């Protein structure tokens, strides 16, 4: 067992525990804070996967923006959130069974492919600057320029739609 494996196991434990707390906390602000901790664990995984850019972006976008939005939304809809009443709906045992089934099924599939996924990562190409490669990939017509522009349109649509919906129609 080497150092990266220890880091992986620690962050995996962090992620799973936090994720369980997210779906079970009665208090929704706590749930959002646990979500932040889970997402931070995922950022550690990105660092282990040598995707430093994504790790930082994970913190900037998820913790800096999305989690804050969640806390805002929880505080804005506070009256219903008074931790009273059941936090899960009547059919939660079915949901639990379904989720366990999903996990067992996925695990079974993975174990069937066992030797296909047991390989270790190769070294990154020595002269690769991941950020530069990413920038090139995003704007070169042979690669991802269309998704790049479509993402912009998607964000525009989200902004317009959300603003329209959230507007105070008086």
């Amino acid at each position, binding site marked *: 067992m080497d150092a990266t494996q220890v*880091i992986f196991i620690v962050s995996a434990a962090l992620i799973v525990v936090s994720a369980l707390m997210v779906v079970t906390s009665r208090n929704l602000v706590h749930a959002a804070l646990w979500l932040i901790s889970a997402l931070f664990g995922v950022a*550690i995984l990105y*660092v282990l996967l040598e995707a*430093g*850019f994504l790790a930082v*972006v994970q913190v*900037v*976008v998820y913790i*800096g*923006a*999305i989690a*804050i*939005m969640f806390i*805002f*939304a929880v*505080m*804005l809809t*506070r*009256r219903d*959130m*008074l931790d009273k009443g059941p936090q899960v709906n009547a059919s939660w045992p079915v949901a639990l069974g379904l989720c366990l089934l999903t996990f067992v099924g996925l695990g079974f599939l993975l174990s069937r492919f066992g030797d296909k996924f047991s390989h270790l990562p190769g070294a990154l190409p020595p002269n690769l600057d991941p*950020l*530069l490669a*990413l*920038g*090139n990939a*995003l*704007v*070169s017509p042979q690669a991802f*320029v269309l998704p*790049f*522009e479509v*993402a*912009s*349109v998607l*964000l*525009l649509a*989200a*902004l*317009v739609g*959300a*603003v*329209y919906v*959230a*507007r*105070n129609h008086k």
Partner: protein
Amino acid sequence: MQNPWLYIGLFLVVGAIIPVVPIVFSALISPKKPNKIKQSTYECGMETVGDSWVQFRADYYIFALVFLVFDVETVFLFPWALSLKALPIFAVFEGVLFIMILIVGLVYTWRKGMLEWA
């Protein structure tokens, strides 16, 4: 050359522990004489009325919304800005188009009067 992320990881751990030190130190030597009045919510001496989880105006949410969209946009722009120097000239205009599309969103929000404090 060492892996800078090792340094960052250790730094995050140490940097989070160091602020705890004065708090623990203070907790050890400071007096503890709590009473009901002292621990009541401080609102300038007035009795607190109702729950503090009152509902707040949704305008804050609109600003957070606009922020979220622009924040994600900038994530796309960082790789673009970084590799600009070596790219052909049309790549600049792709980025400019990207920004323009989002500015349309800002203009829409503005025209709808959502940036006003209603």
